[in-house]
């Protein structure tokens, strides 16, 4: 998000899902696409069959790797070095898009200088990728006509997450793989409305459509529309700052709608202390999640099937969902609960329906100006920016110019992960998802088929390591980090390289985020789920 916004001026997926049917080459990095975004993964598999090329940069042997023309299994957390190395080769060999660089970008000299420090031999030492493979990858990507980069949490969930994203953006700009169909830099959003939550201003520094809270004109506009005075004009706290503030006793109350941070956020112990330290915790959700169990008030909400509303998918497309059934018992749609709270707090908000709310969104959020219920009811969705009701929506961004004008190269230096293995904690733990479960499991673990297919957390460990530690398949092991320890079954598999172990965070019986590091990327504040140092032993 933040990384792309800095380089292009907009943080969303530049292209569309249908573009996956047209591209000649995919660079997939930090995304286990077939399991996390199955219907994008399937398009990549199909594209391979029609002759497209697939380049994967991922330490794990993910299912998609079977189809890769080239799979670079770099050391965890060395993404920036690998991407810089590719750019080094591309510039050295004159494979970059000179016209695009000259007319659409700025700061090229600076990029050149930084990446000149990453010749393939150096990168080999940092990342473990053979120089020859790196060169091959660089040439493949640069020479393809329509090359799409797709990434997910494997890129962002590092202390260097923003740098990783910026490096992807640099690479795409350098080769002119932007501003057309079937190219671009494409972050794949993990949940059905992460994009929408951001678009609607669910962020401390912006209102809807990314209008900054510090901008006086924006503040005035919202004050007028909302008939209030004195809107806060300084950015608020991010979730990670909130947790710290709670621990310090500066934050007193937290109202959480539909999230389960106790399971989803790193360093569970720290979150738990923060939440316990609050004077007042309100949770509004459909299930009594691990976090809800700690609340002072729990408000029962309606599920997606029990209300009307719009959701914005990873390609910036808003779609309308209607109400199918009534909520159970006394549960209510979130929007009605919010209106009721607001009224009692002395600020009445009166809306007859979600359509009514959308009218206000249309008038206050430029990129959603033309996304009306009337239009959504008889089409299959509209992609923002869609400024007015005549506008057809936008399939790909940055056509003739970037949202901010020229695209800015933001070269980054390689920095190692915050926590590296040492003598005692000698393994790297990395986390992710499995196909059958979703996020913290609150929904999928209540679906019998999904629970049957993936009923428990497993720790993937390489056969060599397993042998050394005397661990057999499906045997119970204990994993410990400096923050906590968890017991779970081992799955001995070549999917992970030696000295790396992998697990998921869906299961509350083996809450893997007890181990993870809450060291944050200093800008995006995305925690480093993707790597921390652990030690492993067989349970007696």
């Amino acid at each position, binding site marked *: 998000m933040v990384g792309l916004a800095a380089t292009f001026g907009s943080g969303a997926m530049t292209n569309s899902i249908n573009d996956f049917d047209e591209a000649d080459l995919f660079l997939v990095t930090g995304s286990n696409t*077939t399991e996390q975004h*199955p*219907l994008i*993964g*399937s398009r990549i*598999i*199909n594209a391979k*069959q029609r002759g497209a090329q697939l380049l994967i940069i991922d330490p794990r042997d993910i299912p998609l790797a*079977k*189809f890769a023309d080239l799979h670079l299994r770099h050391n965890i957390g060395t993404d920036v070095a690998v991407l810089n190395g590719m750019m080094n080769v591309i510039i050295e060999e004159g494979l970059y898009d000179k016209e695009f660089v000259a007319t659409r970008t700025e700061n090229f000299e600076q990029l050149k200088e930084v990446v000149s420090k990453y010749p393939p031999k150096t990168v080999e030492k940092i990342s473990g990728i053979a120089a020859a493979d790196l060169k091959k990858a660089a040439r493949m990507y640069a020479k393809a006509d329509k090359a799409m980069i797709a990434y997910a949490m494997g890129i962002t969930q590092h202390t260097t997450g923003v740098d990783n994203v910026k490096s992807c953006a640099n690479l795409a700009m350098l080769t002119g793989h932007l501003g057309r169909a079937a190219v671009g830099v494409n972050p794949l959003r993990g949940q059905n409305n992460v994009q929408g939550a951001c678009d609607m201003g669910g962020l401390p520094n912006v209102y809807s459509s990314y209008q900054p809270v510090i901008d006086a004109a924006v503040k005035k506009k919202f004050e007028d529309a909302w008939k209030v005075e004195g809107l806060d004009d300084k950015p608020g706290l991010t979730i990670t700052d909130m947790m710290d503030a709670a621990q310090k006793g500066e934050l007193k109350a937290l109202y959480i709608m539909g999230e389960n941070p106790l399971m989803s956020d790193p360093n569970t112990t720290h979150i738990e202390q923060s939440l316990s330290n609050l004077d007042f915790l309100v949770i509004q959700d459909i299930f009594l999640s691990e976090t809800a169990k700690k609340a002072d008030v729990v408000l029962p909400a309606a599920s997606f099937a029990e209300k009307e509303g719009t959701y914005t998918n990873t390609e910036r497309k808003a779609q309308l969902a209607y109400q199918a059934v009534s909520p159970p018992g006394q549960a209510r749609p979130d929007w009605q609960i919010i209106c009721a709270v607001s009224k009692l707090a002395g600020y009445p908000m009166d809306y007859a329906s979600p359509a009514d709310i959308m009218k206000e969104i249309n008038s206050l959020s430029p990129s959603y100006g033309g996304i009306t219920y009337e239009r959504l*009811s*008889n*089409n*299959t969705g509209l992609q923002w920016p869609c400024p007015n009701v005549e506008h057809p929506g936008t399939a790909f961004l940055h056509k003739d110019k970037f949202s901010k004008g020229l695209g800015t190269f933001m070269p980054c230096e390689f920095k190692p992960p915050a926590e590296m293995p040492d003598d005692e904690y000698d393994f790297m733990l990395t986390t992710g998802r499995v*196909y059958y479960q979703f996020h913290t499991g609150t929904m999928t673990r209540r679906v*019998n*088929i999904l629970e*049957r*297919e993936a009923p428990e957390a497993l720790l993937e460990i390489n056969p060599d390591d397993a042998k050394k530690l005397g661990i057999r398949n*499906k045997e119970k092991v204990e994993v410990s980090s400096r923050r906590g320890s968890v017991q779970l079954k081992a799955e001995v598999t070549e999917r992970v390289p030696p000295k790396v172990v992998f697990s998921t965070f869906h299961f509350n019986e083996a809450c893997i985020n007890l181990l993870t590091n809450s060291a944050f990327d200093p800008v995006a504040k995305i925690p480093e789920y993707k790597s921390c140092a652990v030690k492993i032993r067989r349970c007696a």
Partner: protein
Amino acid sequence: MKTLAKKDINKILGIWAQKHALLAPAKMDNGDCIFGAFNEKTFTLDYKKPPLSPKSFFFPQAEVIFRVENNKYNEVVAAKKGLIFGLRSCDMMGIRQSSSFMFRDNEDIYYKAKQSSAAMVVMACPHAQNETCFCTTTLSGPVAKKGFDLQLYDTGDVFLVEVGSPRGEELLVGIPLAEMEESKAKQKIDEFIKKARQSIPEVKLVASAMEKLKDKKVAEKVWDDFGAKCITCGGCAFVCPTCTCFNVYDHQYSPGNGLRLRAWDACLYGGFTREASGHNPRASQALRLKRRHEHKLLDYNSTDIQDGLCGCVGCGRCSDYCPVHIGTLEVVKAIAG
């Protein structure tokens, strides 16, 4: 032979809708064509094969089969007097095959209640609905031979009406009808079928694939390659008119209160055959795909096949809706091609 004027169709459906829960093809405002409760505004005659086959009407994806209320057991065998308008003949064969299976040995009361109370009006196919149709190969189309109450042949301004049962006769009471001379009607139907057959060429590879499966001459690599691609969505089984596997779940709401439901399951899911010990006789996706296609093309119970070719009725849905193109047609090509 009786005929119906096409211009009267909405009126006729309106009459039927008074006494039946009437399901008919509908064109939604976003362009989707699916089957739903009859509605004059959305009704369309210009429809293809919706993703779900009509099995979903008799055997819903998730169905409560009993409830326990205050420790009292209440069976739920729900059925309304229904009418399905516009079935394709491949789907009609799908219903015949599934019904045979569901009524064999132990009668499935939940299925039977719904199936036997629904009247079925087949719309014969004047041409292939898309490139995945292969009913002429599986002996299940383009027109139905049995099972329907009424079958309509679209001949332009009028539908020729073939009556298949006494219930079909009843449906015609009080409906504006005309007559066409028998010989002329027969000639029209013959022409209709001939033209339709021409647009749905026989897929010769199906027979050779069946042979090869029988002789166990299929290279394992065929299954390995498909297994590597499959994303295990289960969609091929869910959309298939002749897949009837389900699992049973209990939901307890409070002590003495709860329900049992059954919901579609699929042999493509690993847990479907995993044994309690953890051992799985179909341990890989390749083996699971092999099993599915053997079942469709080789091992289907011979009485359940009816007068079709095999356990596949050639609707082509698995080819239309598999995210990675592993439909029966693709599999047949890989085996025999």
